[in-house]
């Protein structure tokens, strides 16, 4: 039993997923709430098992799976994200023609993939986790079988994802040729060798980075993401914006952070990544500016936010990255949760015009959504501001001033499009009839938890940043 302890969190999740699938297949019931509860219990059980591993640095399979504290921090972020997703999906699925129990099983499988990704130092295992995640994600995107938009999104996601995996695997092959191993620390050592890395090795690293850039939707590898986020069921879109991105950045951080302490210009790869940061922030914000559909706008804004996170990776600021992710988790789920409230009677109302007058007709939804938008725009004293503050100030300390200036410019642009939603909610007269889903306790629970998170992280984060720093200390790079 002792030996199984490090595996326990993962085993519980996978076991729960299989149980959900079996129950769905053999226990015909239209009400899927028990399955959702089972999934919730699974996540909570797994969380309990994971917490016990804190500080032990447990590992399994000869170090192929290492649950150090950093991995546990990311795992906790995923747990919260999945719990939120289940809660906001509870009423959403039956009302939007997607009442499938498989949803919860697939979600758990995706969670398992995420957990594997962040808790392995070996790129092959990471790839396995990524593929587990991806397959589950493709299915989740296309959950609404009769919806053309959802199907288009699923196919796009599948094609693009497979393409990216191709890049990734080819890159891994080249890297293996360089170091005869795919352990990240060994790879780092090979690149740090005095004679320098051979060209093919560098090419391998670039291909791997491109693969991940696809998966986390960095400009110019982002083309698929707005369609997918818009086409996917809203709870899933909320999950995609947070979960897979967090895992992708965790891996990128392990790959890139060892190079970050050195100056930017001595490492060509970091320059390339710097360009990705600038492009993601600017293109994400500028395209969001043009959107009339709020869900799509949030999708583009997630690209800009990915740019900020990559900036944290570049400046080697793991604690800032984790803090940003934690803050983004609450802000993003808050915003997407508000979008879910904007749908009743089997339809969703996500055009800007649909929001006209919402602020006064539905004061709670209006106020909460406004707070999340203001947090996303980076106004103090909410979490979004502090997250950006930590991230940017560390980047300035590392001499990345030009990127910080671009980031601030992108924030300014983002202020406009976030506030424009508030303009519609509070400063325009309603033109259309919209139906809201206001009687949804689980959704309100999520919204208020997010509100709490946004305020707590913005005002009194306490020592959380130092906890993150400590956790990073356990990371072997």
């Amino acid at each position, binding site marked *: 039993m002792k030996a199984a302890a490090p595996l326990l969190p993962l085993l519980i999740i996978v076991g729960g997923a299989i149980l959900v699938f079996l129950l769905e297949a053999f226990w015909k019931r239209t009400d899927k709430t028990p399955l959702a509860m089972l999934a919730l219990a699974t996540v909570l059980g797994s969380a309990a098992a994971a917490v016990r591993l804190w500080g032990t640095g447990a590992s399994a399979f000869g170090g192929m799976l290492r649950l150090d504290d950093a991995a546990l921090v990311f795992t906790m972020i995923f747990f919260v994200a999945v719990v939120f997703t289940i809660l906001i999906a509870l009423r959403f699925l039956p009302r939007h023609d997607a009442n499938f129990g498989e949803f919860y099983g697939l979600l758990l499988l995706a969670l398992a993939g995420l957990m594997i990704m962040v808790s392995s130092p070996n790129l092959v295992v990471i790839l396995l986790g990524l593929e587990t995640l991806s397959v589950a994600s493709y299915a989740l995107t296309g959950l609404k079988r009769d919806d053309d938009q959802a199907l288009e999104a699923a196919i796009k996601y599948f094609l693009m994802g497979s393409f990216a995996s191709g890049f990734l695997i080819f890159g891994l092959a080249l890297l293996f040729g360089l170091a005869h191993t795919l352990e990240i620390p060994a790879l780092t050592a090979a690149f740090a060798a005095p004679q320098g890395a051979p060209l093919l090795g560098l090419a391998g690293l670039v291909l791997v980075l491109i693969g991940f850039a696809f998966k986390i939707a960095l400009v110019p590898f982002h083309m698929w993401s707005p369609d997918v986020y818009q086409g996917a069921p809203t709870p899933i879109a909320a999950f995609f914006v947070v979960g897979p991105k967090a895992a992708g950045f965790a891996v990128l951080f392990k790959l890139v952070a060892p190079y970050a302490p050195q100056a930017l210009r001595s490492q060509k790869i970091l320059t390339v990544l710097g360009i990705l940061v600038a492009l993601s922030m600017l293109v994400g914000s500028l395209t969001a500016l043009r959107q009339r559909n709020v869900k799509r706008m949030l999708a583009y804004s997630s690209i800009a936010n990915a740019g900020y996170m990559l900036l944290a990776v570049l400046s080697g600021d793991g604690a800032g990255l984790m803090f940003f992710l934690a803050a983004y988790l609450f802000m993003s789920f808050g915003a997407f949760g508000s979008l879910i409230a904007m749908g009743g009677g089997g339809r969703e109302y996500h055009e800007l015009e649909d929001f006209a007058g919402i602020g006064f007709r539905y004061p709670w939804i209006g106020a909460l959504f406004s707070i999340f938008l203001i947090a996303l725009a980076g106004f103090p004293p909410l979490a979004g501001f502090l997250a950006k503050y930590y991230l940017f100030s560390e980047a300035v300390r590392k001499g990345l*001033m030009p990127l910080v200036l671009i980031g*601030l410019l992108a*924030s*300014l642009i983002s202020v406009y499009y976030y506030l*424009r939603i508030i*303009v519609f909610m*509070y*400063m325009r007269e309603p033109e259309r009839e919209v139906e809201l889903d206001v009687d949804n306790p689980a959704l309100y629970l999520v919204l208020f938890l997010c509100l709490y998170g946004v305020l707590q992280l913005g005002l009194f*984060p306490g020592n959380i940043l130092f906890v993150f720093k400590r956790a990073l200390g356990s990371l072997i790079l």
Partner: protein
Amino acid sequence: MSIPILSLITFVPLMGAVLLIFLPKERKTLLYGVALTLALFVFVASLLVYLRFDAAEAGPQFVEKSAWLGFGIQFHLGIDGISLFLVILTTLLVPIVLLSSWSYIRVRIKEYLIFMLLLETGILGVFLSLNLFLFYVFWEAALIPMYFLIGIWGGKRRVYATLKFVLFTMFGSLLMLAAIFTLSSLFFKATGAYSLNLFEQARMVLNPRLQTWLFLAFGLAFAIKVPMFPFHTWLPDAHVEAPTGGSVLLAAVLLKMGSYGFIRFAIPLFPDAVETFLPVLSALCLIGIIYGGLMALIQKDIKSLVAYSSVSHMGLVMLAVFSLNVEGTLGAIYQMLNHGLSTGALFLAVGILYERAHTRAIKDFGGVSKQMPVFSAFFLIAVLSSAGLPGLNGFIGEISCLYGIFAANKVYAALAVTTVILGAAYLLWMFQRVMQGPVTNEKILSFRDMNRREILYFAPIVVLMFWMGISPGTFLGKMDASVTAYVQRIKGRERVFVQKAGPPPAARRIDVREELSR
């Protein structure tokens, strides 16, 4: 001091806003009662601070300091002679504004009161913060309530005006944020410790070229807020569209955040850069003074006339700030208070007229004083105070501003005097067209004079105008020590690098090129 009175002053309005959320929105009297009681409580608390304020002490008093977020970010409040009266001005004006809104704001009263109280917290926080981060937090936080106030209760082009206001201000503040990052990083590299404490930061000696960039970032944020020419274009839009209460606070207090920012942060932190830029800055102020005055002359709308007069008056204030001597700075602060009172009163008067006529165009009025004799008297006093008539507050402020400017540069002073001439011209001409002459518009015959509520909120301002005009010593006495110390610090320039332990080493300069390439 056992009671953290500055925190109390800052956060009671915030608590009031939270309390209001849970009150029923139909109970207008209850909502106003709660908001007004809390605002008055804050005002009384700030008067207590005034009474117990030690005029001989130059540094900050009633200091509250505690660790907050790490990285040198502390919760650090304090009040000194420079900020004392700005705080009291704010706490005085908020209850007045609330009273004035009773009949003006007809819809969404609860939300209006909530945003007013939130705004008060933001503004007070700006004036009381001594930590760069905390200052920035309040600076930005004050933006959001104003955004809603203009956007929801404003006029026809309110959405355009409010977004312009937010984006202009944000543009400046984000650059300031970048400068704050840089300062924090430099301080860390120099001392190995984190600090965003204003006084520790001000002891750091920076390379003049680096100072230039940082000053430009800070200065732009403040210059947009003041607003200095050519960054003023948001102001007339915001003022014309804002509801009366919003206009009053915007003109009377929010603009002062900019000039206060120069005195408190930009100038002490980057004195060398200020000296380099003095000619440019002074030229901008002078252009603002003359341009604002001329624009005010040709306005057809009373509110935009007052808005442009703000551009002109604030130009004089900023020119006095840039004189960098005791007289000029004292005059500037005094004039900031005067401008707060007189422009606030003018906007209130315009609001009173608007409630009756539902128009603000000057041509629609004429001969109003016959119908509204009491109002006419109040309005005239406000106009004369703004124009700088001896015996009223504006005169003292303008004279000491000009005195300071004259001591610094005689040509500037000669040009700056135009603010007085132009001010008298556009204000009195406006008064004549609106209040005197024959009644041209029949609607005016139905105007009622000011009611008791309107007199109640207008009277304190008028009393203060006389008080500040007749006995300025009451006010200047409390400012003197802080301002003298401030000027000495800038002129003295004997700053050494802070070091955690050991004797202070000789001033070390940080090379900008070395910094950027690191």
